[in-house]
């Protein structure tokens, strides 16, 4: 990056270190923080949507839909989430390839599963083997986002279903007495009121999402854990910047990053809670009213 860094073997001390911190690989490490933040930014709304759908489904009057919602919300209770993180991307990948295989190569007669192999025709491969490396990376990232969204959607569905039950029942009955239909009750009374009840659970969920992001590494995405291991490993003299095993320091940086994320989220979420509690018919809302008066 700097002209002085052209010959790293001749550098010493602080200059060496500055040059080391600005090598191409290091910059990739810095960018990978953005990958993690992007994942959180994309996953959170999608998971919330999934959760919303799941929570509404558990209250549905149509039995199969209700069972689906119940199954989805209870899916994460007994099984470690890591199982889903390992399962969903592979299952999704194979499912998509299988569908493409059936539609794109209808005259292929051999079975897709041959012993320990999963064989689809070349045109059905996802992504196509001819596509550039970046497409493969994006595809892997998208699979990760879907896996995260499904798992966190199930968590969110739990929280939101609980929040919907927490809305005082008398209010819903009053709305019905005014002649509102079920849809109207949901849209005008239930959904606007449930957020304050959902907030503690949802903020908890956000904290959990932050702490789940290192699992991206398990999904094969080049995230911060991947780069910390890669760059921290001992570099012998054949490298431009030889150094002993620095993985401990790299992981300490990650630790500080996560602690900072947690701290900032805590402060922000406390503000949001205050904002949403104002004027609510709950104990906290009442306390705020009295303090203000």
């Amino acid at each position, binding site marked *: 990056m700097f002209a002085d860094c052209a010959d790293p073997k001749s550098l010493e001390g602080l200059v060496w270190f500055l040059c080391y911190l600005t090598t191409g690989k290091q910059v990739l490490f810095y960018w990978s923080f953005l990958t993690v933040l992007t994942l959180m930014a994309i996953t959170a709304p999608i998971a919330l949507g999934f959760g919303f759908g799941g929570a509404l489904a558990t209250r549905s009057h149509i039995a199969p839909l209700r069972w689906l919602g119940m199954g989805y919300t209870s899916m994460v209770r007994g099984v470690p989430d890591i199982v889903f993180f390992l399962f969903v991307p592979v299952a999704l990948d194979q499912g998509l390839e299988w569908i493409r295989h059936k539609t794109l190569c209808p005259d292929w007669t051999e079975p897709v599963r041959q012993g320990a192999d999963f064989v689809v025709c070349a045109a059905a491969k996802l992504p196509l083997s001819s596509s550039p490396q970046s497409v493969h990376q994006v595809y892997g990232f998208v699979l990760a986002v879907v896996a995260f969204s499904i798992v966190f959607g199930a*968590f969110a569905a739990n929280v939101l279903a609980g929040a919907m039950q927490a809305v005082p029942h008398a209010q819903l009955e009053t709305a019905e007495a005014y002649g509102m239909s079920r849809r109207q009750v949901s849209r005008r009374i239930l959904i606007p009121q449930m957020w304050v009840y959902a907030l503690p659970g949802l903020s908890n969920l956000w904290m959990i999402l932050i702490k789940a992001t290192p699992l991206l590494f398990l999904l094969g995405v080049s995230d911060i854990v991947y780069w910390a291991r890669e760059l921290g490993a001992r570099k012998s003299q054949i490298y431009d910047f030889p150094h002993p095993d620095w993985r401990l320091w790299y992981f300490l940086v990650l630790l500080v990053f996560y602690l900072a994320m947690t701290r900032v989220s805590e402060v922000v979420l406390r503000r949001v809670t205050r904002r949403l509690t104002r004027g609510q018919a709950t104990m906290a809302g009442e306390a705020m009213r009295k303090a203000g008066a």
Partner: protein
Amino acid sequence: MSCGQIILDYGLRSIGIGAQLLPRGEFSLCHQFTLIGSGLIWNIYFAVLALATGFFAATGLALAKSARARWLRKPAEWFIFLFRGSPLFIQFFLAYEMLVLLPRGGFDIFGMTVATSWLTKAWAGALIVLFLNTAAYSAEIFYGALMAVPKGDIEAADAYGMTGWKKFRWVIWPTMLRLAWPSYTNEAIFLFHATTLVFFSGFPSFQQKGDALYYAKFFADKTFNPFVPYPIAAFYFVLLTLSLIGLFGWVNRRLNRHLPGARPRLRIRPQIIR
């Protein structure tokens, strides 16, 4: 090979008893059920020991956090923040890198050599991390319960002339446990689920001895079919989670047995990743 033979060969494979090599070429349903079930030994080992030791550390930490003395309160608060604010995955990596830095040959203290190499093994190193982690999470739960102990209980204990240890042992502690138990049940379940992370983090599995998920991934990679091994692992975990809930429910009933009327039921709320 008959299924009985497979169970003999692989039933205790995860702790190094039985067949030396993992199955090659043939991956029958019996193979998968046996080997994944064998890996479950490690999950149970980690969960039971971490919970049993972490429980006492958590009680101490909760008391320290509620202490008036600054030098006691601040370290407890920082410890809890450190372990609750960072991902367990990173904690595993960090702990492993730290333990690897210890001198290979061990320390020399007064002529005696204290070996350190065992600390880098999963059975010890990962257990320490899980212990510290569950201590921090449970301490926060216990602290909340400690703050919720009814004022009247403590005043009654004072009126009886109870002080110090006696007051804690017979009044504060039982009430704290009773209040904390539903959340503590959740914590136990999630610690149990978190044990699946051990062999995916820094700790290497020695001679392919791993936990249930390690073997499930082994089969998924070998057969390239995730639809069999992961549901098997999920099945085992659901089964064990249910027995855990049963056990903790029994304790919950015992803790609440003096209360008249409806006993608080355990509510299992999901909050898994740490």
